[in-house]
């Protein structure tokens, strides 16, 4: 839905420059939401909510990639000329964005069951590329002048989920309390 709004504004002739933040942020939000249920389920057990969340995790992740691709499309439309895009490639704020997109492209491209079966244990390893993608995307935002505080929205939940995962792995669980 937010993608449709962004596209609609784009078609309506909005400045592509204005749509960077919206598309990029949605990608970050969805990436964060996709990264949370795994570690949380290790700590809280498979509660109904987490089971549902895990079920839609793949959709969240793939949609995060689609938003990143939309973000790139907006960038290309904004820049207009290929030489201008190449000219910027060496700027840290720009190449971190490209690298984040490629890091996200790989897990997104293998997000279907057959790839999962074919790649076996390597599949899980490749899915972990979402973490460097997320980190690079955050650096990309910060270099483009984002307030550091606004990145905490992504950093805090992910770190908290990992802290809980660490607790769970050291033997401390919060199992469902049955009434």
């Amino acid at each position, binding site marked *: 839905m937010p993608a449709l709004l962004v596209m609609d504004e784009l078609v309506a002739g909005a400045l592509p420059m204005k749509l960077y933040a919206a598309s990029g942020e949605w990608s970050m939000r969805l990436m964060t*939401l996709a990264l949370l249920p795994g570690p949380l389920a290790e700590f809280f057990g498979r509660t109904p909510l987490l089971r549902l969340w895990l079920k839609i995790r793949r959709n969240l992740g793939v949609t995060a990639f689609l938003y990143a691709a939309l973000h790139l499309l907006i960038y290309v439309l904004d*820049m207009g000329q290929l030489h201008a895009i190449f000219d910027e490639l060496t700027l840290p704020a720009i190449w971190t964005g490209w690298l984040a997109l490629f890091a996200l492209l790989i897990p997104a491209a293998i997000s279907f069951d057959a790839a999962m079966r074919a790649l076996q244990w390597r599949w899980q390893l490749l899915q972990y590329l979402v973490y460097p993608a997320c980190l690079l995307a955050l650096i990309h935002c910060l270099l483009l002048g984002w307030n550091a505080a606004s990145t905490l929205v992504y950093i805090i939940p992910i770190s908290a989920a990992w802290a809980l995962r660490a607790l769970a792995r050291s033997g401390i669980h919060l199992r*469902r309390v049955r009434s």
Partner: protein
Amino acid sequence: MIRRHAFVRLLTAAALALVVAPAYADGDIQCGSGPQQDWQPMKALQKKAWLERWEVVEMKIEGDCYEVYARTESGQSIEAFFHPDTLEKLVVFRRGQEIYRAEGFEG
């Protein structure tokens, strides 16, 4: 069960925070200008940009500065801050990197 309710509430709050958190662009440049009625009109700024041979994408007021998004002759995407009283070019960014700063300007 109480714990689970608290957990769900926490998740809802976190999800809400994810959605409403705004992205702050670099709006922390301070030009040190006076009251707005003393500012020069934006039209004059347009001329300044034209003299720089920029293709203006957008002009706006940012804090106590005039801000211009533009493309240079060589196609670089830039963001420039001007003093609204004097229309002096104070600082120019290219993709978050400072590429120009007026001598003595520290805002």
